[in-house]
């Protein structure tokens, strides 16, 4: 599955796009990512799946594109 990363998170992880093995849902994905990149624990972030913001745990499919969004700074 493709994970795209923005802003301060991309800088911390060292990449704006990473690949992960399929997991069942966004909650699991978050644990997998935090395990791989422990610095993610210190930055609050939202997730979006296929360019849809999510506010709760949702199931994931192999071809989903998940985005990690640090705090916004627009306007």
């Amino acid at each position, binding site marked *: 599955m493709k994970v795209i990363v923005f802003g301060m998170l991309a800088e911390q992880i060292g990449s704006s796009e990473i690949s992960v093995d399929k997991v069942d849902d966004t909650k699991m994905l978050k644990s997998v990512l935090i395990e791989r990149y422990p610095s993610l624990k210190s930055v609050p972030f939202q997730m979006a799946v296929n360019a849809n913001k999510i506010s709760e745990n949702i199931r994931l499919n192999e071809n989903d594109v998940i985005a990690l969004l640090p705090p916004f700074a627009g*306007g």
Partner: protein
Amino acid sequence: MTEEKKDKSYFYAGAITPEMIANSIAGHSRKKNIGAHQIFLGQVREDAVNGQKVKAIEYSVYHELANKEIAKIREELIVKHQLTCAHVLHSEGLVSAGEICFFVFVSSPHRNEAVDACAEMVNRIKKEVPVFGKEIFENETYQWKENKD
């Protein structure tokens, strides 16, 4: 008309110029049912952090989601406030202190709707749209910006 084309981008590479804003105002004179325009301009402020001044902000954007969110906010506010017209433009890439990075322009037959809609549009965009900013200081160090209000 309030419709925008599909795949509309609300982002512009670089600072938004006063000329662009003036041209937008001029373009609305043909819409004869407009009685009021309310315009918001966001300018990059030369904030001081630990004795260093902000020289520029570098904006990055999650385009697919950001355009979708702006389109949604725009459409909701056009309906809610019965606007004749609403335009949004946000810079991406580097914008220097003193330059315009955000332009919201709403129009309606009477002023109350335009005033209210513009304020709501600005607040919602700042809160809901995935735009990221790196504040670059004079000595080339930087920090990531976070909207507070």
